């Protein structure tokens, strides 16, 4: 009675990185049952292998399709396999691999070692990848949940610890609240356009504007609510209030991974929704998309609040939480720039470059905190890194690299990211917000350099525990941060082929 779509209709080959990861994570969940307690290193290795295979496939297709501007659909257009998807996949997979390396010793010595940790991490990485590949608001929604729900669980992974459980519940309740806004926003967009596919929304938006229908305000409201839902994920002001508490309470190895993965997923989806679904959503009398002014206002507030509050922090996890809010602000400059016609592709590239730089730097910085932290979860204040340079010169040097990169000092990855973001901002004539970005970067130098000062010029015991997977993770992150900083064209070459498939 019905014709069933064949496998070739689904175009599974184009979705290989995600499909392999899904398969690997499911198999790992079963295999882990047969890994005896105390030998969970095997599970961690297998998780790394799954991520590695997926990463290789993603890298291969990234090389393949550099000229992609059109994009290839899979799963009836709900999955978009273009170079943006591959770039997002690469960032997420690198982050997840570093996340596994950072976690292993930490879980072992804090008594949290369970195979499910790695499985949940793989599933949430899959969610982040799918957000970058979304060609439809339905995909955005379910992928967002696949990213978030494992993160809620991982935040509460420290068993019977009030801090960990509190942070998980807080993250969960506010996350579910934000999902509500996202779903209602999707409902309104669907109501205004009759579809949830980005291509259809794009086409319907043009008709709506041509007819000057009052429905465009429904669309505007819907876009605003979707922005709020995704803004929560990336910790943009005013949806940021969960970030410091969750980062401080959750196990540090989880934060190292989640601070990057949630941002990558959230921004990838924002790029898809705004730059693809609603690029031409220009209300009469404006020169740029209707959402642009809102986004840059949020960007400005986010940068100011994140950087100013971070100055007063004494707990390192909390300091990096406010720093991560601030970095969301910088990336939002590039997102806002996508609203100006002709700048969209350059801005999307800037987002990808910034996220890549941020992935190495931020996972690395949290990995150093993992090394400094005691088994009981304490010892994460800035005082605890006093004199670290004497006891652990290599660790302190790595931390210094990460701090300089977060501050955006030249010859680090962070500088390259900021450079491209500010360039996109200026190309889109967003001068005020770009100036705010530069000024707040100067403020941020104070609190990042303060950490370096404490490590090198203050007396203290500065103890740390490093075993080999953690040391590898930190080394890879530090080397990555430096290489991307020394050879900025590595990044821009990778991103050069990124062009969003408008109206596909």
């Amino acid at each position, binding site marked *: 009675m019905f014709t069933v779509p064949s496998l070739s209709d689904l175009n599974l080959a184009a979705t290989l990185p995600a499909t392999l990861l899904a398969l690997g994570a499911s198999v790992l969940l079963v295999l882990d049952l047969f890994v005896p307690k105390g030998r969970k290193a095997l599970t961690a290795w297998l998780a790394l292998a799954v991520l590695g295979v997926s990463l290789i496939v993603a890298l291969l297709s990234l090389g393949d399709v550099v000229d992609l501007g059109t994009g290839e659909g899979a799963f009836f257009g709900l999955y978009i396999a273009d170079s943006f998807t591959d770039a997002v996949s690469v960032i997420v997979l690198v982050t997840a691999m570093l996340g596994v390396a950072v976690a292993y010793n930490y879980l072992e010595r804090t008594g949290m070692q369970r195979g499910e940790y790695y499985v949940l991490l793989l599933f949430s990485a899959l969610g982040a990848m799918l957000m970058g590949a979304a060609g439809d608001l339905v995909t955005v929604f379910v992928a967002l949940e696949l990213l978030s729900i494992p993160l809620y669980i991982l935040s*509460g992974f420290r068993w*019977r610890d009030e801090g960990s*459980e509190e942070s998980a*519940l807080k993250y969960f309740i506010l996350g579910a609240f934000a999902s*509500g806004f996202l779903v209602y926003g999707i*409902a309104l967009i*669907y*109501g205004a356009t*009759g579809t949830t596919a980005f291509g259809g929304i794009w086409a319907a938006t043009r008709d709506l504007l041509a007819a000057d229908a009052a429905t465009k305000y429904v669309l505007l409201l819907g876009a605003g609510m979707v922005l709020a839902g995704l803004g929560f994920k990336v910790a943009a002001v005013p949806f940021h209030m969960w970030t410091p508490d969750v980062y401080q309470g959750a196990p540090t190895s989880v934060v190292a991974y989640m601070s990057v993965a949630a941002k990558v997923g959230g921004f990838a989806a924002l790029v898809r929704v705004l730059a693809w679904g609603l690029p031409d959503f220009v209300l009469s009398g404006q020169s740029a998309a209707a959402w642009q002014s809102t986004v840059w206002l949020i960007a400005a507030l986010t940068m100011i609040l994140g950087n100013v509050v971070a100055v007063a922090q004494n707990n390192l996890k909390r300091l990096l939480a406010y720093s991560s809010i601030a970095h969301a602000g910088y990336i939002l400059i590039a997102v806002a720039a996508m609203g100006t016609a002709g700048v969209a592709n350059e801005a999307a590239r800037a987002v990808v470059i910034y996220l890549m730089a941020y992935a190495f730097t931020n996972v690395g910085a949290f990995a150093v905190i993992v090394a400094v932290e005691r088994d009981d979860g304490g010892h994460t204040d800035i005082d605890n890194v006093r004199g670290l340079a004497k006891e652990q010169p290599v660790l302190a040097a790595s931390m210094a690299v990460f701090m300089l990169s977060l501050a955006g000092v030249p010859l680090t990855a962070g500088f390259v990211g900021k450079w491209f973001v500010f360039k996109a901002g200026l190309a889109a004539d967003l001068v005020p917000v770009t100036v705010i970005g530069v000024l707040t970067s100067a403020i941020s130098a104070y609190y990042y350099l303060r950490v370096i000062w404490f490590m090198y010029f203050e007396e203290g015991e500065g103890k740390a525990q490093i075993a080999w997977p953690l040391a590898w993770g930190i080394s890879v992150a530090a080397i990555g941060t430096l290489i991307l900083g020394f050879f900025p064209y590595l990044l821009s070459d990778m991103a050069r082929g990124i062009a969003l498939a408008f109206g596909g």
Partner: protein
Amino acid sequence: MEAPAVATELYVLLSAVLFILGALGVLLRRNAILVFMSVELMLNAANLALVAFARQWGNGGGHLMVFFVMTVAAAEVAVGLALIVAIYRTKKSIDIDLLHRFKD
């Protein structure tokens, strides 16, 4: 197709009111379970709007979205209630005003 007896606008208006009530519940109630139930109310309000719009457009996209929202809600409930049970065991309370361990 003749105009439906009840206009889509009425359904959407009702759903907006329900959504706002749910949001108020999240912001005002202190019991974690009630906050959570308010989130469910918000999701249901969104679903009602989706179904109303689906009839308006005569396509199934809205219905499918509702279907996925329901499934995701079920997953969220499982995890959320597990968290609430876990935190109750540790703290003997699910009053979210007591969740203020961390301060600036």
